[in-house]
């Protein structure tokens, strides 16, 4: 056996071991059931999204239970504060004629925020899966196209692609797809980076993981989670309102 071979096989062993450590937080897959030989599989993120939906449902039922015209309870005051915050944000960013988008933006904000905060329960963030963030970005993409077609009608829709000059057509079309792609990757990248860095810190500190993970978790699991949800709705709103044809 030559030295090179020994080195190479040692390196291969290390790579194999590193793969088994699972610092990466790879997506787990669960087999749901089997009908006539056809298997149905679910990813971890789908199951955690069900938990998110249940949490949201419980919070909404608690907050909106037994409402009065003049708020008497703190629950109702909190719910109204949240709704007013989102409504003011939508009116401030998109203008008050986009009032119909308030429920969607509200849903998006609550859903992404709770999804991002799932890391606190020791679960994997569903938003650290590109198929979840991609879905949300595709909804934004279709809303942008809808708003452009609605405000510009047939002529304005196609004319908006050759503005300001006809040779800009390829750039406009690329930009149309690059925006939702960046939107999906921004949320995915931020949450995955937080997850991977958290896992690496726990792995590196081993049994001495006392104070440092708490500090980094405060930033990645709480600050970054809330901030990314806010950034996602702000960008969604500015993409939709900037697609307006005049």
């Amino acid at each position: 056996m030559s030295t090179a071979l020994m080195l190479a096989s040692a390196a291969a062993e290390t790579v194999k071991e590193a793969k088994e450590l699972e610092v990466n937080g790879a997506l787990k897959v669960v087999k749901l059931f089997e009908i006539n030989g056809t298997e149905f599989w679910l990813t971890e993120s789908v199951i955690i999204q069900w938990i998110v939906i249940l949490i949201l449902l419980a919070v909404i039922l608690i907050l909106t239970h037994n409402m009065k015209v003049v708020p008497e309870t703190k629950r109702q005051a909190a719910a109204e504060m949240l709704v007013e915050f989102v409504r003011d944000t939508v009116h401030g960013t998109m203008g008050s004629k986009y009032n119909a988008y308030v429920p969607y933006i509200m849903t998006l904000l609550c859903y992404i925020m709770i999804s991002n905060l799932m890391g606190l329960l020791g679960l994997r963030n569903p938003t650290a899966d590109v198929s979840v963030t991609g879905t949300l970005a595709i909804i934004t993409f279709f809303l942008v196209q809808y708003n452009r077609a609605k405000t510009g009608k047939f002529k304005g829709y196609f004319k908006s692609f050759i503005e300001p000059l006809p040779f800009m057509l390829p750039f406009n079309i690329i930009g149309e797809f690059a925006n939702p792609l960046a939107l999906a990757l921004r949320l995915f990248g931020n949450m995955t980076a937080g997850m991977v860095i958290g896992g690496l810190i726990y792995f590196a500190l081993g049994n001495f993981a006392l104070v440092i993970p708490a500090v980094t978790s405060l930033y990645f699991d709480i600050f970054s989670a809330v901030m990314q949800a806010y950034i996602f709705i702000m960008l969604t709103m500015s993409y939709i309102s900037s697609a307006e044809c005049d």
Partner: protein
Amino acid sequence: MEMTPETMKILANGILLGASALGAGTAMIAGLGPGIGEGYCGGQAVAAIGRQPEASGAITRTMIIGDALAETTGLYALVIALLLLYANPLIGKLL
């Protein structure tokens, strides 16, 4: 020292895995750009708030959006690095 086909195979695989890891690390040099961009963005926002403290809410909102947009290129690099580390398309080409 003789190179049997077995040796060549292990060496080739080792080079492929090592080059993938190096590529992942090199991709993250792109983190420089967003760092500079976000720092400039934050500095300008502080200057603007210093000049006009009553507009701090609107300035902070705009700054956060600007930060998020400046971050995009860095996140593209992060996605490439994560692909190379965890979902390496080159692994299928191992001998």
